[in-house]
């Protein structure tokens, strides 16, 4: 909005015309063309455009090379031919002139055309704070309007996408930085009038400007980069954020040793790190806007529940025919073991993140803050798939850092996925979520077709009791095994998850069990016992049901939820004590009726249980829902939080 108060105290200019600049103190302009290769014709064209299009006011000085004949008579513009060594003299003459006029000074390095409306908008930002001493616009490639990156190391990413105007519109109005030499800097009048020529032996305008701006910063004046003012240019990047020649730079660093620190500060700006990420999320090419990184580094090079959960989800994502492009992050051993390259031709596969993404989802729980920080540095939205909260609850398998990690995601993630409502409730009760964190129970596949191995499907039930678990106390496998051995001494018991024998009628598959062998055991069991106190989903339970087996599991709200989501030929029976366990197993072995949990209660008429594709689609749908509000603000908050944490370690 334009404020009319600007004009209230307007003064009469020297020509008698009302000079609104006067109350805004106006500006003088110093343009240095002496370093460029413009020929006389190009200089003439530039000056004509400057006069005809820019509409600048104040005193305009254009410095041209002394071997270029300055054109005559362009109104309001003074051209000065100067040898290189005279350029600094001309700059300080412009500084003295602006000081005399009581005006701001616009310093332009190269043939840019900063229009008066842009400079006016820039100078208005001085009003924000008396110690905003310098202000500068963003620069755009005139051929496509992509925004040139702020100065600093540009090798952060393998392919640095360029920030589009759509991405620019999501950035804050301005960012405060240390001094930054660019092709257009407006220097506040209060700063200008304190600038002195120290005759410090610098040879370049860029070096002298850096010195003057550094001195201004030392007096307390900061620089503003205004994301709402852009100047288009066809100049190469190096001309936009010019670096003084090495000799000048050495001299400057000797005079003011903190200069490299100021440069590092600029390079490390949170906004600067956000820009390539926004560039991806707001790419001109619509096919580039929806790219998701699925972090499967929790997958190991052998069969286990987590690996198969991830493989299932990857199958689901692979089956989706939508606009989202998927890259998968996995360790090389896991890639080879599960032949991910052959299995997922559509996906890009990496063992470390190297690109930028609109979203990154870790397909299991995060165990370390470094994983979160890494995904955050590559993606606008970050999500985590919580498979259970057991580690935190049982404590002895993790350290206290896990608490902080999960509290962090409850506060700073964009979306949390869960493999069951049961897991969701456990997590939410332990880690209160910030209101803006989206949640979705995505489940794992509940489809009997997907959870059963076709090779063994239809196998007749054998005579063994299959006991599932591992050595973790919450699995309760040893106590249960002893009970079953005592109760059913003549029945063969196959115990998966322990290594040493507990009885003569007990068989224990040793070492790592092949996927197909495990499914064979499940498919051919008379009854499956799952004594775990605590699960997030319980894939073996769903697999047993898919094969039409009776599964006896310890009473838990989880099983009611799972039963309500499936339609299988098996039956899921709960026990709550040694007596009810023995009774249920005995009845199952005898083929007597049981009281199974009702199945499919949560499914609408005609609705099939979720397949892996549906689970993946739920994740995609959640990301889609987040896109309209994904404006980088949450990313910046997360960045600040991560930086603060990082300080503790540095």
């Amino acid at each position: 909005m334009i404020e009319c108060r600007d004009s209230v105290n307007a003064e009469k200019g020297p020509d008698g015309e009302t000079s609104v600049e006067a109350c805004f103190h106006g500006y003088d302009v110093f343009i240095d063309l002496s370093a460029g290769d413009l020929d006389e014709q190009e200089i003439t064209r530039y000056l004509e455009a400057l006069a005809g299009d820019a509409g600048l006011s104040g005193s305009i000085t254009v410095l041209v090379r002394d071997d270029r004949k300055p054109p005559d008579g362009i109104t309001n513009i003074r051209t000065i031919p100067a040898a290189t060594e005279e350029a600094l003299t001309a700059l300080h003459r412009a500084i003295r002139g602006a000081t005399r006029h009581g005006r701001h000074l616009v310093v332009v390095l190269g043939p840019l055309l900063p229009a008066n409306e842009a400079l006016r908008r820039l100078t208005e930002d001085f009003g924000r704070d008396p110690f905003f001493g310098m202000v500068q616009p963003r620069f755009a490639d005139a051929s496509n309007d992509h925004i040139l990156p702020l100065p600093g190391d540009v090798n952060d990413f393998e392919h640095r996408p360029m920030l589009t105007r759509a991405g620019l519109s999501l950035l804050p109005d301005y960012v405060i930085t240390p001094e930054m030499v660019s092709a257009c800097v407006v220097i506040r009048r209060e700063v200008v009038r304190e600038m002195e020529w120290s005759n410090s032996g610098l040879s370049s305008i860029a070096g002298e400007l850096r010195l003057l701006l550094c001195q201004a910063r030392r007096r307390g004046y900061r620089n503003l980069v205004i994301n709402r003012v852009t100047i288009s240019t066809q100049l190469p990047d190096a001309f936009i954020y010019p670096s003084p020649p090495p000799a000048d730079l050495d001299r400057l660093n000797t005079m003011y040793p903190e200069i490299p620190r100021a440069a590092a500060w600029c390079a490390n700006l949170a906004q600067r790190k956000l820009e390539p990420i926004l560039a991806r999320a707001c790419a001109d090419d619509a096919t580039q806007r929806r790219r998701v990184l699925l972090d499967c580094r929790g997958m190991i090079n052998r069969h286990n529940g987590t690996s198969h959960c991830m493989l299932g989800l990857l199958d689901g994502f692979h089956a989706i025919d939508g606009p989202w492009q998927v890259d998968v992050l996995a360790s090389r051993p896991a890639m080879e073991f599960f032949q991910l390259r052959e299995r997922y031709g559509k996906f890009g596969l990496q063992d470390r993140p190297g690109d930028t993404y609109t979203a990154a989802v870790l397909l299991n729980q995060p165990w370390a803050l470094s994983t979160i920080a890494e995904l955050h540095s590559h993606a606008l939205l970050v999500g985590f798939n919580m498979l259970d909260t057991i580690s935190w609850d049982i404590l002895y398998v993790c350290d206290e850092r896990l608490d902080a990690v999960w509290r962090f995601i409850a506060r700073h993630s964009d979306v949390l996925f869960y493999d069951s409502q049961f897991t969701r409730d456990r997590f939410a009760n332990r880690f209160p979520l910030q209101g803006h964190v989206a949640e979705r129970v995505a489940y794992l596949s509940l489809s009997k077709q997907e959870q059963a191995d076709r090779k063994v499907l239809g196998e007749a039930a054998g005579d063994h009791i299959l006991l599932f678990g591992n050595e973790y106390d919450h699995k309760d496998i040893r106590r249960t095994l002893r009970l079953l051995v005592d109760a059913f001494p003549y029945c063969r018991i196959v115990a998966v998850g322990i290594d040493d024998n507990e009885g003569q009628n007990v068989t224990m598959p040793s070492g790592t069990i092949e996927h197909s062998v495990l499914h064979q055991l499940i498919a051919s069991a008379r009854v499956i016992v799952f004594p775990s106190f605590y699960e997030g989903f319980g894939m073996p339970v769903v697999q047993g049901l898919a094969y039409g087996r009776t599964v006896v599991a310890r009473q838990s709200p989880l099983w009611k939820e799972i039963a309500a989501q499936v339609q299988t030929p098996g039956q899921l029976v709960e026990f709550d004590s040694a007596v009810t366990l023995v009774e249920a197993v005995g009845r199952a072995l005898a083929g007597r009726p049981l009281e199974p949990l009702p199945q499919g209660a949560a499914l609408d008429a005609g609705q099939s249980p979720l397949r892996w594709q549906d689970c993946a689609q739920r994740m995609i749908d959640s990301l889609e829902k987040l896109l309209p509000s994904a404006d980088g603000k949450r990313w910046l908050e997360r960045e600040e939080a991560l930086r603060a944490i990082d300080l503790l370690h540095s």
Partner: protein
Amino acid sequence: MRVLTLLVRHGTDKFPGAIDEVAALFARQLPEVDWDLIVIDNKLPEDYEQALGVRQVLIGGSNAMREFSAWQSGLAYAGRRLSDYDFVNLTTEAFGTLYTAYLDRFSTNMLRLISRRGAAVGHIDYYNAPVRLFGRQSRAWLRTSFVFLPPAELKMLGSLISIAEPAGIFSGNPETPFLPDAPISENYQGYLLGWLTGDGTGQGVEWHSRFTLSGDTLPHFQNKVVAILNEHLFSIRLRAQGCAMVDATWLATRAGKLGSNGQPLGPIPSWRKQLTERDTDAVPPNVLFNCPV
């Protein structure tokens, strides 16, 4: 390509066919466009809402700053859906008045050339000499009765209303309606008076609704001046943020030359160059390039 049109009207007395005319233009010239329409009627209460058809809705709007406050109502109504569109088409019920030949030049191919660019497309008007307003010098502006621009530009612009409170501009005296220190240059004051109450701005065109300035018509005069200033400042503020004014006739000319083979538009030249390069109604170069070099 998705386009959202925000059509402002003030009842249906003056331009009863405005909706049909905009719809016909889109059907005729932009048939591939996925088009949504929000009609903002400044005569209706601001909470009014009525579906007009598939993807067309009528809402009430604020008339406080005429079409600019009405568009603001439309943008608020669209909310976050705005970013789903490639272009927002700001238009008023009077879009079919005055010079209209440029309207026939809009096409999907032409809009595709500036999709996601920092550009607003419409008809560029200009004065014979630069004017100053609120500390800015300007000579040209986009006619806001029919303009296309990306949602990102509107987001960066913020409020479309540049002048909400015209304090410091008007004297209250119809004889000399501007304050001596009004933030409007004398030549601009002359253009404004000429356009609204006289024989134009020296370009041989007269406004169809000009009136005699008197005590009775002074409020109307002031409202019209504020609307004109808001229109001009709309372009100035867009330019400041790096959103170029693109003349529709020039862009259609370029689109014709580039064909539909996906060749990019490249750098957008200054408005002066555009106007002299139009294939129809081109402005003679000496009119615009008269700087004493």
